[in-house]
């Protein structure tokens, strides 16, 4: 998945834990392969290759449900959560320290917009050659949910799945205590900005620290508005708790895309517990924090 992942389980027998862990890891690997945009044999590549060709592509049930989910995310975020926006990375190279020109950005904007996509399950048609979709914005969170679910179904009562900071709790420690989860500090990756205690559900974070560049003292992060093609001036990070990690992830992504004020309002309206840090490094939110050190 391109980031450190961990799976922690409690089971009576090591062999049993290993067997369940293997199943969960196999499922995570399956999802990564299936939706990787770097693999020639992935569903994502097949969809993107079909762009501009009638009548489009028939997709499997799992992909169909993921596309339905993307549609809901698009509708609920007024078009900010858009799985066709990945193509912006072709003009925004955050390793280059070069700001693209407005001309370059405007050249790709016509290829962005879920509203252009013809999606009538199970048929997906991307109408323009060069149009792309990318499941990267939520498939990792989905994989965390699926892996946790596999463990629960196999009878594991305590454990957690952590896929590069997207966390899904299988259940508390055997003594009933929750898992102490550190939330990354957006300006100091080695120091958690706070800890939360979780016994169930999912926690996902989004921030301006994942990919960014500083040009003339201005921070340009990968939180790109799909309508303008420009980075959004927003929170430094938003972490959201929800029953499903995928919902937590989408909610935090949308909060980042909305900018600080509207983003916080969005989280308040959702009623989900959250914690965020603004550009002034102030921490606030409704997710209950606990002391860091034992």
């Amino acid at each position, binding site marked *: 998945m391109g980031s450190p992942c961990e799976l922690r389980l409690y089971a*009576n*027998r090591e062999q049993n834990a290993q067997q369940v862990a293997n199943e969960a890891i196999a499922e995570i690997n399956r999802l990564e392969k299936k939706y990787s945009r770097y693999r020639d044999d992935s569903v994502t590549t097949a969809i993107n290759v079909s762009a501009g060709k009638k009548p489009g592509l028939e997709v499997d049930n799992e992909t169909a449900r993921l596309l339905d989910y993307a549609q809901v995310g698009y509708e609920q975020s007024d078009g900010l959560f858009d799985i066709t926006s990945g193509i912006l990375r072709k003009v925004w190279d955050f390793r280059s320290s070069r700001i693209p020109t407005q001309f370059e950005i405007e050249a790709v904007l016509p290829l962005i917009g879920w509203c252009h996509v013809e999606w009538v399950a199970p048929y997906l048609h991307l109408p323009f050659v060069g149009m792309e979709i990318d499941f990267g914005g939520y498939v990792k969170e989905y994989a965390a949910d699926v892996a946790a679910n596999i463990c629960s179904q196999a009878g594991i009562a305590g454990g957690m799945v952590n896929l590069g900071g997207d966390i899904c709790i299988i259940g508390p420690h055997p003594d009933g205590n929750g898992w102490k989860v550190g939330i990354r500090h957006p300006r100091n990756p080695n120091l958690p900005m706070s800890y939360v205690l979780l016994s169930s559900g999912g926690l996902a974070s989004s921030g301006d620290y994942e990919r960014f560049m500083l040009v003339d003292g201005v921070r340009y992060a990968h939180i790109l508005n799909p309508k303008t093609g420009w980075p959004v001036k927003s929170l430094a990070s938003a972490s959201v708790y929800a*029953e*499903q990690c995928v919902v937590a992830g989408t909610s935090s992504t949308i909060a980042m895309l909305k900018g600080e004020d509207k983003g916080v309002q969005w989280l308040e309206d959702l009623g989900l*517990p959250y914690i965020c840090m603004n550009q002034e490094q102030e921490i606030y939110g409704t997710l209950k924090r606990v002391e860091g050190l034992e």
Partner: protein
Amino acid sequence: MGLKRSGLSPALAALTTAAMTLPGISTIVKAGAVANEPKLSLQYTRYDEDSIPSGDAAPEAGDRDRYEIDVAQIEFLYPINGQWQLTGGFVYDDMSGSSPWFVRPTNADGTGDPLVVMSGATIDDTRYDFSLKADYFGEKFTISPSIGYSTEKDYKAVSGGVEVEYESPNKATSVRGGVAVSFDEIDPTQLAGVTRVNNEDKDNFSIFGGLTQVINKYTVIQTTLGVSHFDGFLSDPYKQVWVAGSILPDSRPGDRTQYTWATRLRRYSELLGSALHVDYRFYYDDWDVRSHTLDLGLHKVTESGWALDTSIRYYSQTQADFYEPFYRQARADGEYSSDYRLSPYGSFVFRLGLSESIGEWTVKVAAERYISDKSYSVQSVDVENPALLDYTAVTFGADYSF
């Protein structure tokens, strides 16, 4: 850390609902999901009916040993593609033993306790049952047509049906309905000196509708209403009745309409790490038989991988309006039956099952004990049918997923 349930925001509701339809996230509702791999299930069950106690049998009763039944089942599930799935089944039954023939009073003048007379000779019969079911998983509907054929020495039955299930887009609600028909033909083995029918048939038409609702992550409730109508020869050609000193054939009305209402509740308890089952069924038919069934069960998967199933079922029924253990006088309508299955009684079933997955195999073993008695009935019963059944069953099974 629960979510604020009241006033759930529309955006959160929409995202959560969409997330719950993602395969692999929703755990409880499995309906409408085509299996990924072919699966073979093998099962063997041995039923051992208790002998009739000597105090309940007439001196001339004959062999008091009741049926021993061996049942072997094979089922093969084959997913054809993402939308179609076929399930083929075969059941082989082999039964041998005696069965209650008729009930007579202790004394020839119609007084005294009822006593059972058994079928004279040991009965041996074999039944073969074939079935085929297809499931079509459409965008919104699952449609499942099925056909069946069953045959034994003196009996043939063909059946068919179709079930349709609609699942709401959020998968929290599903509505199911179906119809089924069967046509049975009986050609009883004749016995010198006993009047038995020749070549009779009966037809059945059934219809049902039900609703399943996922209440939350832990709770599912299902309720179903059904009506079933039988028409034709509904008597038991091998049973007789004692009527004022004469022995007459079992003779029941030519049609019967049955109504059932069943509700099932499944609740997962995190505290117990188990799923609890509470099932209740009410039954009524126009022969005036009413019954209540309550089934309480617990399903637990232990951390070592064993699955434990245990349940208790309680059942109580009233008698059919024309039933008597024996008849002191003839009835004007000519309807007679002393079949213990139409008598008033109550019963308990105690069941324990264990299963474990080993690689591609799941092996199962289960045992159940069934006991019935007039005293278990909800209402008080004056005279118990002496042929009430008790049995023990043991099942061994194995499933293989390819």
